[in-house]
């Protein structure tokens, strides 16, 4: 039976998709995304199945599934700009574009396994949904299930492409099995032995061949330093530093002739397992020709304008290398936007490769006195930069307390922390952390780093930043480049510098009231300590850590409770699939989803009610047939819970109805030969038999006039009788969720041929 084949094939296809999707676990964190995508696939295949049930035209099913895909994407990702929340408008489409760009950035910014953030989630839903629709069209509309292997293979190849590694062999084996099951579901009569043998070969092969193949290693990107290959900048940094081949990243000249730290991005959020960049939605108004004010900088601080002319030679990154803070950038190609918090400049769709631009920046020269004056005051809106995970290893905060907890001001605490790293037993090593298994920036890594006292810039920077946070100083980690080396020749009269891949660097930025974000340099033997942080500079106080005089971490202006909550939120977000919706919008979503589900559930009821209305109207107008009236009666009976198989003859059906409802007394069976003479057809019978007889005459007797006068009255009478013998809940169900519509969609009786 076609319907059974359909159900079987769609079921197998769904299984194959779900198994293949599971292969993405190597690149995505958590399992929430799998359930989302599984639901999406189930809905799409279900819609296609349903449409095939209702219509014979093959092309309709994939079309309907595609329409539903677009509607779902709209409903779940950009409902604000859509009509009724799910009909996409031109604006929705452009928002889709923005989401796609953000997804690209999000992929570039995250380490593996990545969080399925909203943009990534959108990208996944779009891709997987398209693949599901395509696979369904190939399997069911085109009837070539074998070709469905192609979209499945694409899905299977995604993790391999990202990780440069063979996909999880177990998943691969199961995907192969599911694919074979799909082929078999299409042709159940194929020889079972052959299928089993073939499956065995495929499964064994898929497990053995990867082991025999030489290890696939990622191709070395010799063209430049890369940040957009789907990895977190932190990891990219380590990998680039460790790479033997040093290559030029960029050249720059400055008006002032002073070397510049060039910052790419600041990592604002510490999740416990990672430092991650904050990626707010791009504000398209924020063109870098005029950038915003420097956060926290007051007019009292002495600044000096400077201009840098930067030419990127070998760097692919969505962020622009810039001095901090930059006021404007000129000469860029394409779309670049600045972010008001970190003042970094990034592009949703370009990389830095080949860009040549002029950046006007400020040199901030706070005096130690100004820094000291900032005291321990922290603006309330910087809670994000104080957030620490609840389960932060005690060694980090106790070390911080013992090193700097007793200092009176945040500035002195910062000096003590920097001193702790630079002047202590710490050594610089790019390989030790990798060798000993604590590479990265997570809190476990920091604890190990504090114990082993060996690491490179990222360890120093993240350790100092986390310790600063534990002492109540807002902090973040900046990723970028050291100033590089001065070139012997001047260019256009300006001192020229060249920056190589080995100049990649990370450093902590601490916030001081009135000054803003201030760079420190805890990394031993690297970089250059700014004058305000150099104990040897004039005016810089020798900080004293007074044991016992422990100053409470967060000061009065930042109440502890909200801080904690914020920390929880950050954690919660990263624990789950990192949706950025607040609780209220979450509820709103639930409501919208529930309302949509409710509306969807009422569709069959509406279709049913309108078809009844139309039939009865035509009947009353004498423009319909007995068969239509009969169909209405049978459908009503089905709705009321009386089962009348569609293979029943009118007589059988009438008998079933009579038994089910005692409608219409005067039971009549087929007159046996030798009994009484067949009575006059319609005489003395109830409406049910009159209608049944009319149906038989209309369908099977020679063409002739059929009395239609009573059809409408008989039909309404029978329906009323049927309803009268039915319980109220059944009647309500018949109206709201008419079973006749569901049996059309999901046939109950297995039909045999």
């Amino acid at each position, binding site marked *: 039976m076609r319907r059974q084949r359909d159900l079987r094939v769609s079921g197998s296809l769904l299984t194959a998709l779900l198994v293949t999707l599971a292969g993405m676990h190597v690149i995505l964190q958590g399992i929430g995304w799998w359930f989302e995508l599984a639901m999406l696939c189930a809905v799409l295949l279900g819609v296609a199945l349903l449409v095939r049930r209702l219509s014979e035209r093959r092309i309709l099913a994939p079309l309907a599934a595609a329409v539903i895909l677009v509607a779902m994407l709209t409903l779940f990702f950009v409902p604000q700009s859509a009509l009724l929340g799910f009909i996409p408008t031109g604006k929705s489409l452009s928002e889709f574009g923005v989401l796609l760009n953000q997804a690209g950035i999000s992929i570039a910014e995250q380490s593996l396994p990545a969080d399925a953030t909203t943009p990534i989630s959108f990208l996944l839903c779009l891709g997987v949904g398209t693949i599901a629709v395509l696979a369904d069209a190939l399997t069911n509309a085109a009837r070539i299930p074998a070709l469905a292997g192609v979209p499945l293979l694409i899905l299977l190849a995604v993790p391999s492409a990202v990780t440069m590694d063979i996909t999880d062999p177990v998943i691969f084996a199961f995907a192969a099995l599911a694919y074979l099951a799909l082929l078999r579901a299409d042709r159940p009569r194929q020889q079972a032995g052959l299928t089993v043998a073939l499956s065995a070969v495929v499964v064994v092969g898929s497990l053995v061949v990867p082991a025999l193949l030489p290890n696939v290693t990622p191709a070395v990107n010799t063209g430049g330093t890369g940040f957009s290959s789907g990895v977190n900048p932190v990891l990219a940094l380590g990998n680039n530093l460790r790479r033997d081949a040093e290559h030029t990243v960029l050249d720059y000249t400055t008006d002032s002739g002073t070397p510049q730290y060039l910052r790419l991005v600041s990592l604002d959020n510490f999740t416990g397992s990672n430092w991650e960049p904050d990626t707010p939605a791009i504000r398209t108004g924020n063109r870098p020709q005029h950038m915003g004010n420097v956060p926290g900088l007051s007019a009292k601080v002495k600044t000096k304008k400077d201009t840098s002319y930067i030419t990127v030679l070998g760097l692919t990154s969505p962020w622009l290398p810039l001095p901090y803070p930059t006021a404007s950038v000129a000469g860029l190609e394409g779309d670049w936007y600045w972010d008001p918090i970190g003042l970094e400049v990034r592009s949703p769709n370009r990389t830095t490769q080949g860009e040549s631009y002029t950046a006007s920046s400020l040199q901030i020269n706070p005096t130690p006195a100004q820094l000291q004056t900032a005291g321990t005051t922290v603006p309330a809106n910087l809670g994000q930069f104080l957030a620490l995970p609840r389960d932060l290893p005690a060694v980090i905060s106790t070390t911080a307390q013992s090193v700097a907890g007793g200092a009176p001001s945040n500035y002195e605490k910062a000096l003590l922390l920097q001193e702790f790293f630079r002047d202590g037993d710490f050594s610089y090593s790019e390989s030790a952390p990798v060798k000993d298994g604590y590479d990265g920036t997570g809190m476990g890594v920091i604890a190990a780093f504090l114990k082993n006292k060996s690491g490179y810039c990222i360890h120093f920077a993240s350790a100092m930043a986390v310790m600063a946070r534990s002492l109540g100083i807002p902090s973040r980690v900046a990723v970028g480049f050291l100033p590089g080396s001065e070139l012997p020749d001047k260019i256009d009269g300006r001192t020229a510098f060249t920056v190589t891949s080995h100049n990649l660097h990370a450093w902590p930025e601490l916030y001081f009231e009135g000054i803003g974000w201030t760079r420190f340099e805890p990394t031993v033997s690297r970089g250059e300590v700014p004058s305000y942080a150099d104990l040897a500079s004039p005016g810089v106080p020798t900080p004293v850590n007074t044991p016992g005089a422990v100053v409470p971490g967060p000061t009065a202006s930042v109440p502890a409770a909200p801080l904690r909550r914020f920390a929880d939120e950050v954690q919660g977000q990263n624990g789950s699939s990192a949706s950025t919706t607040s609780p209220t919008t979450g509820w709103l979503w639930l409501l919208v989803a529930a309302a949509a589900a409710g509306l969807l559930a009422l569709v069959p009821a509406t279709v049913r009610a309108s078809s009844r209305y139309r039939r009865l109207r035509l009947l009353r107008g004498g423009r319909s047939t007995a068969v239509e009236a009969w169909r209405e009666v049978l459908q009503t009976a089905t709705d009321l819970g009386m089962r009348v198989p*569609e*293979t029943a003859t009118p007589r059988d059906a009438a008998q079933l109805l009579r038994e089910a409802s005692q409608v219409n007394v005067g039971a009549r069976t*087929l*007159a*046996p*030969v030798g009994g009484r003479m067949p009575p006059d057809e319609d005489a003395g019978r109830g409406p049910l038999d009159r209608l049944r007889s009319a149906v*038989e005459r209309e369908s099977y007797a020679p063409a002739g006039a059929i009395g239609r006068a009573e059809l409408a009255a008989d039909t309404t009478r029978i329906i009323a009788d049927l309803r009268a013998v039915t319980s109220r809940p059944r009647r309500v169900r018949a109206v709201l969720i008419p079973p006749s519509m569901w049996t059309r969609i999901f046939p109950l009786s297995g039909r045999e041929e």
Partner: protein
Amino acid sequence: MSNTSDRGMPLEDFYRHATEIVRSIETVIDGKRDAVNMALTVLLAEGHILIEDVPGVGKTMLARALARSVDCSVNRIQFTPDLLPSDITGVSIYNQVEREFEFKPGPIFANIVIGDEINRASPKTQSALLESMEEGQVTVDGSTSVLASPFTVIATQNPVEMEGTYPLPEAQRDRFMARISMGYPDEAAEIAMLRTRESTSPLANVVPVVSTVQLISMIATVREVFVSWAVEQYAVSIAQATRRNRDLRLGASPRATLHLVRAAKARAALDGREFVLPDDIDALAIPVLSHRLIPTSRLAGDGAPFAVGAVADIIARIVAATPVPLGAVGPA
């Protein structure tokens, strides 16, 4: 099986005659209304009947009672292993007076031929019936003789697993319109039978209630019954479903479909209708189809080439699964 140009009779008269025949048969066969109705249906549909059951349940009695109720020529052939084809069709004998060969018609030349225990004869002899049953004629020594009209073979046979039987070949089985199984009588009927048949043969009391002319007219009435396209479609769907069914090695032949619809016309007329309903097809599917279908060996089981019950089940399932066309549909 000839071209009867007689006109049919009004349905009321048809019904009255049919009732008389049934009553007449029922004086000798108690409690077998279905079998009797079926036999009459096939007779009126110009088909041949195969009555199959264990010995002693009244197969021959039904055949003879039906034959005697109609005033027409009746011959009875007792099939035995040594019966020759010419014992059925007749032989050409040299007439020394006329100095030429003269055809001596065999017992096949009658309106109703009762073939008793047909499966006791050799296949060769059984096949002698083939031509006559299908074409209503007999060819002996190159000359063809047309059989009487109406012509109906009522054959009885024992189940094939009984001793000394030759199963009927598929081709021969296919020529019977329907197979009837008598079944054992119920308790009351068996006791009644003991009373009535203690002394005399009840058949002696059966007198013809319908003349040959009336029978021919009744057959013409059946021919006039209307079969809609929807019902034809339904019958064909069922037949095709038997050909596709996985449990059947041999499905219904086109002749089986033809027989199904013809029998349905007779049943409709007997029900007082001038048109066939799908219900007629439903009711006749098992008697008309079951003896023609061969189940796969899986279902046949050991030693039983035709698992009657299994085949009937399959047909019932097919009928239950075939949608009934509704509405004034026609060939597209």
